[in-house]
C-alpha cells in the first residue's frame, strides 16, 4: 500500500519539521498586562482580530477596537477563524465601463496587515489543510493575500470539551502546526512559543526567558492536555467498499440539511458564485443543502439526505485523504456541538461497518 506509506511519511515529516523549528526558536514568558500593552501598540499598524465575548451569545472573532475586549479564556469561538482567510462572502471581480469600453476588473485586495489572536490549534491546522486547496497547484488570489497579511497567534486549549477529538485527527490541544506564535496560559501570564519570522518580528522584543517553574508548568501542561480529550477513535482506512451500504440511510435520518456543520467547520471550503449587480461574489455553500448539487437541467445527483451525508463523510475521511494525505477534519467538534439535532460525525465514522459488500 504505497499510498498509506506515503501518507505516514508525510505526517511524520511534518512532525519532525515542527519539533526542530521549536528547538531553533524562541520561548518567552510574558505577563498578561504586558501582552495587552504590546497588542495595544500594534493597533496602529495592524488590524487585531481576536475572540470577544458577547453576553449570552458566545465567543466570536471580531476586529477589536479596544484590546480590553479581548477574551483569552477557556471557551471556544463559535465560528472558526477560517472566515478571515476564506471569506464567507467576497467580491471576486466586477464588470463595468471604463473610458467607454467594457471591462472586467479584479476586486482590490485589502492591504492592511493583521494579527489574528486566540486561534486554537485545530483552527490553525485547518488553515494548513485549506492551503492544500487554495495555495498549491491552484493559487487563490485573495486567500493567499489574507494568509500573507496575517500573523497567527494561537492559544493552546486549557479545557477541551466533550465534543473535541483533535487527537484522533492527528492533532493536539497544544499543537503548533500553522501557528506563527502559540500562547500557553499559565499563572499571571503566558508562555509564548515563537515559530516563524513573522512571529519573531512581532513578539521578540518583549518578555523574558521563562524560569524553571514556568518551564515545568509548560511541560506538564503539554503532557496533560491531550489526556483531557475524551473521544478517541481510529478513522477507517478506506471507506469506498461501504459506499453503497444502507448504513448511510440509517445514520443520515436526523439530518436537517442545514448549513451549520459546513459553515462552522474550520476545513470546509465549498462555495458558490453569485452574480449581484455586475459583481461576482464567492459565497460559502454547504454540501448538506438540498440544492447544493441541483443542476440547471433540474436533475439533482444527491437528492436525499443519504447521498448528501455520505458525501460529507467521504469528502472528509476518504477522498481528501486519498488526494492530499490527511483527513479533512481537525477534530474541533464544532459540528457536533452546534448541530441542531446533535449528530455526531465522529461516532458515525467510527461505527461505520468495515469491509466490502454491505
Amino acid at each position, binding site marked *: 500500500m504505497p499510498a498509506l506509506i506515503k501518507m505516514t511519511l508525510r505526517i511524520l515529516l511534518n512532525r519532525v519539521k515542527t519539533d526542530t523549528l521549536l528547538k531553533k526558536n524562541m520561548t518567552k514568558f510574558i505577563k498578561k498586562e504586558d501582552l495587552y500593552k504590546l497588542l495595544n501598540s500594534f493597533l496602529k499598524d495592524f488590524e487585531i482580530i481576536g475572540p470577544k465575548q*458577547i453576553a*449570552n*451569545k*458566545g465567543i*466570536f472573532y471580531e476586529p477589536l477596537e479596544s484590546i480590553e475586549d479581548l477574551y483569552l479564556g*477557556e*471557551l471556544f469561538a*463559535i*465560528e472558526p477563524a477560517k472566515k478571515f482567510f476564506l471569506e*464567507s*462572502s467576497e*467580491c471576486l471581480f466586477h464588470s463595468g465601463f471604463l473610458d467607454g469600453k467594457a471591462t472586467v476588473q479584479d476586486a482590490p485586495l485589502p492591504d492592511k496587515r493583521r494579527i489574528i489572536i486566540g486561534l486554537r490549534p485545530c483552527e490553525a491546522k485547518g488553515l494548513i489543510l485549506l492551503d492544500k486547496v487554495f495555495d498549491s497547484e491552484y493559487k487563490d488570489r485573495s486567500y493567499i493575500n489574507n494568509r500573507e497579511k496575517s500573523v497567527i497567534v494561537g492559544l493552546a486549549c486549557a479545557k477541551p*470539551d*466533550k*465534543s473535541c477529538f483533535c487527537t484522533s485527527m492527528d492533532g493536539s490541544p497544544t499543537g503548533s502546526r500553522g501557528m506563527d506564535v502559540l500562547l500557553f496560559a499559565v499563572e499571571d501570564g503566558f508562555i509564548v512559543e515563537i515559530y516563524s519570522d513573522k512571529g519573531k518580528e512581532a513578539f521578540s522584543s518583549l518578555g523574558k526567558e521563562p524560569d524553571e517553574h514556568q518551564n515545568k508548568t509548560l511541560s506538564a501542561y503539554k503532557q496533560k492536555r491531550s489526556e483531557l480529550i475524551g473521544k478517541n477513535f481510529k478513522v477507517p482506512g478506506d471507506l469506498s467498499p461501504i459506499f453503497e451500504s444502507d448504513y448511510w440511510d440509517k445514520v443520515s*435520518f*436526523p439530518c*436537517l*440539511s*442545514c*448549513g*451549520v456543520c459546513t*459553515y*462552522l467547520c474550520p476545513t470546509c471550503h465549498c462555495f458558490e458564485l*453569485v452574480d*449581484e*449587480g455586475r*459583481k461576482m*461574489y464567492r*459565497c460559502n455553500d*454547504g454540501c448538506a*443543502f438540498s*440544492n447544493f448539487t441541483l443542476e440547471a437541467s433540474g436533475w439533482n445527483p444527491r437528492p436525499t439526505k443519504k447521498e448528501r451525508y455520505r458525501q460529507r463523510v467521504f469528502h472528509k475521511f476518504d477522498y481528501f485523504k486519498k488526494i492530499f494525505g490527511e483527513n479533512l477534519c481537525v477534530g474541533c467538534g464544532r459540528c457536533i*456541538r*452546534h448541530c*441542531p*439535532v*446533535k*449528530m*455526531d460525525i465522529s*461516532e458515525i465514522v467510527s461505527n461505520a461497518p468495515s469491509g466490502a459488500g454491505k
Partner: protein
Amino acid sequence: MIEELRNKARELLKTKQVEAVIGYQRASDGLSAIPCVIRSEEEAGRLIWDAACVYNLCGYLKDFRAKKLGIVAKACDVRAMIVLISENQLNRDDVFIIGMECCGVVDEKRARVSGRDGSDISSADKCKSCASCVPLAYDCLIKEKREKAKVSEDADKDKYEPVRKLEAKSLSEKSKSWKDEFKRCIRCYACRQVCPMCYCPRCVADQFMPVWFSKAGGIEGNFSWNVARAMHLAGRCIDCGECERACPVGIPLRDINRKIEKDIKELFGYEAGMKTDAKPFLACFDKNDPEDFIK
C-alpha cells in the same frame, strides 16, 4: 413513562397500524437526545423520553409521504401538526400521534453557551409560558406520573412581556440592537430547516433572479432574510422555539416571531395551531380589520 411509550410503539408496529415510529433516542454523549425512526418491534427499546427531548419531530414527516406513521409528540409539536393539517400538508389519518404529557424541556442553548456540559436541567424559555402540558390532539396519551414541574406556573403571566419591553425602546436603540444581532447571521438556514412550518420545496432564499437576500457585504441581506422568514410565518408560527435553539450564533428569533404573534392576537384575535379546520391567517380577511395605519 418510557416503558409505556416503548410498549405502545411495539404494539403499533406489531399490528401494522403504522409503518414506522418517529421518536427520540439517546445521543452519543449520553445526555442529549437525537431524533430516530423505529421500523420494527425489536428497535422500540431505543426510544427514550425525558427533558432532553427538545426537538420538534414534525419536519421528518415529509420524508415519509403517503405512509402511515407514528410520532412521539409534545403539546407544542402537536400544535405544529395542527397547522400543517390546516394547510393540507399532512393528512390527520396518516399520522398516529403518541401524545406525551410534557413537563418542560432543557435549555440546552444556555448550557452550551456558558460552557457547561448540557446536564443543566433548567427549563427552556418557551416552556415557561406554555399553557398546557397535554397536547390538543392525540391518538393515545402517555401521562406524566411524576409530580409536575412548574411549567404552567408562569403561564398566566403576560406571555408577551419580553416583546413589550423591546417595543418600548427608542427607534435608534432598536435599530442598533437588531443590527448587532443580524450582523452575526451566517445564513446557515438552520432556522428554516428546523422549522416545521418551513416546507417549501424551493425556498425564496435559494432563488437567483432576483436574489432577494443579498450576500454582498453589509447587513441588508441578513436583515431581509430574517424579516422575510418572520413574515412567511405570520399566523403560522406556534412558538416551538426550535429556530432560536438551532441558531448557532444566538440571534433572538423568538422575539421577532412572538412580536408578530402578539400583533396578530391583539389586532385580529387569531391564534395559530388551535383548530385543524382553521383557515390560514393571511388567506382570509375580515371587513372590519384595522386600517388606522392607512391614509
